[in-house]
């Protein structure tokens, strides 16, 4: 068999994390009842004119800067014409002639080492609605909630040669764009979608082979499977003449593990792009450009190195925390407050992670305020609140904004230094349970734990365990 190489280019659509849609003030939130987030504008009714959401441009620029792009200081919107029921105006407002970002690059790491993937351009555009097919009545209904939700499309050069590189790139994009709060990049919710342009050629050949485009992949593992399937199909066609390869768009069916032809180049429509006369060209002046530049976060790997070198975190801890911008922000604020990097890392990695897992939330959904976490850690380190009670307070902190000390005081979580009271409680319990005392004296360690537990329960946990243990042992001796 001849040796073949794979050439892949990607078009990645990212839904921007804006509150409202790109050209109207409807909510851009995912979900909601069908046709809940709609107005005459995003339903395509006559009379409405587009008014550009400035935040979309902010995030478009942010994405470009994170991906080392040049920013077009004058950027314009264009109309792309095609008929489909989920597109209420029968045109999509997008960027064709002067996209906001061009010529970027993203460095990826694979088993073969580092590689730069070139970005051709990033353009801003509006999303389409969604068709809901009802097989029972054989009708299609349309939900316009997603119509005009802002997107960026990141178009790469055909620089990938394997599924591994594609996956590394997508994970890198996801990490950078989540870090910059451009998008949640959740493939399962469709806020990150990927089209794969793929062709095969003999090794050494400079001309590109017949290219197919695959759509409809909603997970990274599906993309890997789709690429592997498509490569095999192309090679089979070239080697064995099983079919004639044509330039076409194909749909990936992940359940069946096969791709299907959707439309060929011949039947593809002419989109008749032209500049949108209702959207004035956007001019990005130095002040605007600089303010976005200044708002960019440190890259995750830079943060990670700093956490290890300067704050003494382990590679493992630093790696985990830098998976999420929310974790990083919380970590840095908490560290600033309490000065105990390792302690903060422990709280984040064990307690916060557990809490999020139980809720089924992602790391980026952590709501705990970093400064408050720092204060809480200080309370524990100063033995003002026990670790057990601090965990209870942490759960509250992920729901609402509280001052940990104030909350602890109001809810009797402050460790009592009233030794007289502690002694009184211990004396009563020891007196009431001579059997356990005798058991302990007879060598049963467990009996001590039972007594200790009873005391702690009566004291509602607000007692330094060391102090309690010391006094308890004294009282047992006396008994």
């Amino acid at each position: 068999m001849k040796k073949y190489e794979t050439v892949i280019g990607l078009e990645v659509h990212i839904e921007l994390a804006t509150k409202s849609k790109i050209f109207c003030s409807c909510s851009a939130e995912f979900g909601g009842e069908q046709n809940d987030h709609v107005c005459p504008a995003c339903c395509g009714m006559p009379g409405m004119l587009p008014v550009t959401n400035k935040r979309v441009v902010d995030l478009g620029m942010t994405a470009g800067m994170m991906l080392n792009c040049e920013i077009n200081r004058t950027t314009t919107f264009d109309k792309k014409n095609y008929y489909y029921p989920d597109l209420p105006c029968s045109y999509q407002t997008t960027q064709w002639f002067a996209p906001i970002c061009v010529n970027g690059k993203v460095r990826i790491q694979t088993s073969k080492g580092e590689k730069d993937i070139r970005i051709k351009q990033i353009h801003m555009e509006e999303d389409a609605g969604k068709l809901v097919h009802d097989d029972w009545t054989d009708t299609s209904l349309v939900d316009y909630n997603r119509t005009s939700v802002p997107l960026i499309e990141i178009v790469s050069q055909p620089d990938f040669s394997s599924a591994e590189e594609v996956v590394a790139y997508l994970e890198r994009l996801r990490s950078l764009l989540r870090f910059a709060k451009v998008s949640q990049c959740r493939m399962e919710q469709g806020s990150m979608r990927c089209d794969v342009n793929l062709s095969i050629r003999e090794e050494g050949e400079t001309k590109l082979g017949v290219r197919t485009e695959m759509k409809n992949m909603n997970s990274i593992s599906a993309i890997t499977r789709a690429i592997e399937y498509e490569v095999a199909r192309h090679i089979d066609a070239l080697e064995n003449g099983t079919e004639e390869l044509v330039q076409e768009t194909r749909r990936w069916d992940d359940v069946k593990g096969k791709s299907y032809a959707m439309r060929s180049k011949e039947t593809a429509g002419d989109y008749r792009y032209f500049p949108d006369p209702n959207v004035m060209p956007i001019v990005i002046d130095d002040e605007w450009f600089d303010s976005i530049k200044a708002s960019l976060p440190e890259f995750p790997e830079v943060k990670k190195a700093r956490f290890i070198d300067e704050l003494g975190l382990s590679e493992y801890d630093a790696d985990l925390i830098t998976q999420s911008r929310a974790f990083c922000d919380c970590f840095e604020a908490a560290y600033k407050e309490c000065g105990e990097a390792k302690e903060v890392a422990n709280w984040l990695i064990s307690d916060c992670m557990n809490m999020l897992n139980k809720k089924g939330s992602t790391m980026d959904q952590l709501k705990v305020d970093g400064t408050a976490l720092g204060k809480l850690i200080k309370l524990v380190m100063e033995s003002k609140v026990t670790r057990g009670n601090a965990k209870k307070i942490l759960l509250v902190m992920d729901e609402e904004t509280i001052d940990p000390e104030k909350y602890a005081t109001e809810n009797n979580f402050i460790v009592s230094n009233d030794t007289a009271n502690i002694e009184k409680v211990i004396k009563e319990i020891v007196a009431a349970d001579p059997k356990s005392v005798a058991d302990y004296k007879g060598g049963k360690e467990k009996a001590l734990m039972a007594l200790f537990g009873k005391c702690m329960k009566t004291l509602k946990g607000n007692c330094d365990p060391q102090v309690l243990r010391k006094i308890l042992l004294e009282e047992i001796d006396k008994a």
Partner: protein
Amino acid sequence: MKLYLTKSDCAMTNAVALDDMFLTKAMPTTAGSKMLDGYMSLFDAEVVTKLTEAGYEIAGKANVGEMAVDLLGETSYEGAVTDDNGTLLSASAEIAKEAKAVLCFDVNGAPRRAAAVSDLIFVKPTYGTVSRFGTVSSACSGETVGVMAKTVADAKAVLTAIAGHDDKDGTSLSDSQCEKILTTEKAVKKVAIAKSITASADDSVKADIEAAKKILSDNGVEVAEIDDEILTKAKAAWNILMSAELCNNVSRFDGVKYGYRSENYTTIEELYTNSRTEAFGELLKTMIIYGSDVLSTDNYMSFYDKAMRIRRVIAEKFAEIFAEYDAVMLPASSKKAFTKADTDANMYLAFDENLYTAPATITGLPAVVGGGVQLIGKAFSDSALMDAVKTIKEGK
């Protein structure tokens, strides 16, 4: 004459009517198309809100040609309005004779032509000074809300009520810019007559220009003829841009969400095709095909892109003229009357008549029609143009 209002509706001294390109909650809005027969808007056009706030009564609606791109409204799905001799009448103009004013959507010069043939005033203000929010989009880069009235004073009063910034229109200018159109900063002292465009009109129209020239001269205004060769190219350029934008804007009328839906379909393609085939008129359909063609990958550069370049050249030519002159004078139409037979014989007559109206449309410059002439001035010189037209009208 089928209009949405009677003459008694217009009897109120502050009654303003609208042509049917303006969306209203209280009345249906059709844009002259069977596609929108009975369409009720969820909201009012910004100018309707502003008129109401200024104390005007909305008298009702006037028929308009389908998407406001025809000669004088003859393509309205309710039929052309004519007098007993078959002369085409503009519904807006007929109502303007009774009401205080009629707001008209000037896309392809129809209201300017109507004012010219009916001896009324029409003010097409500087692009961006009156909100287009709540108008049925036709050809957005040139379409402008204007005022038709019997006198310059009435037109100006209504324009005062509707001009101003609107956040809901991305092309709307600032309030301070919009206000400029209402005061005369520099009176019209030097007028250039567009030589070849004027020469191409009927004798009766040319006579009006001559008469206006004399009145202006008598009033101390210097009048000279200029070479207008480049301005004649506005016609072809606007026909291209207008068709392209129109084709795109009416693509939302697909029979899926609202408006006319054919009963004859089994597939989505048939639903689209049959609904649009049955509901759109011949002129609009022709423009959709023409507009699609000039935007196609094969033709974009040689038609649409070139038309945009011509638009810029014309704007530069006007800037050059306005360095020396305060206004350009030209007719608003080739004739003083059109008949139904004229448009029956040539449904594209409006495309030809664009020779007179496209120069101001394509550049967004203010144009005022009255006293048998059209004056075009530099941006924000609307008030000075109105003053000059008032002088001409009063001098006749």
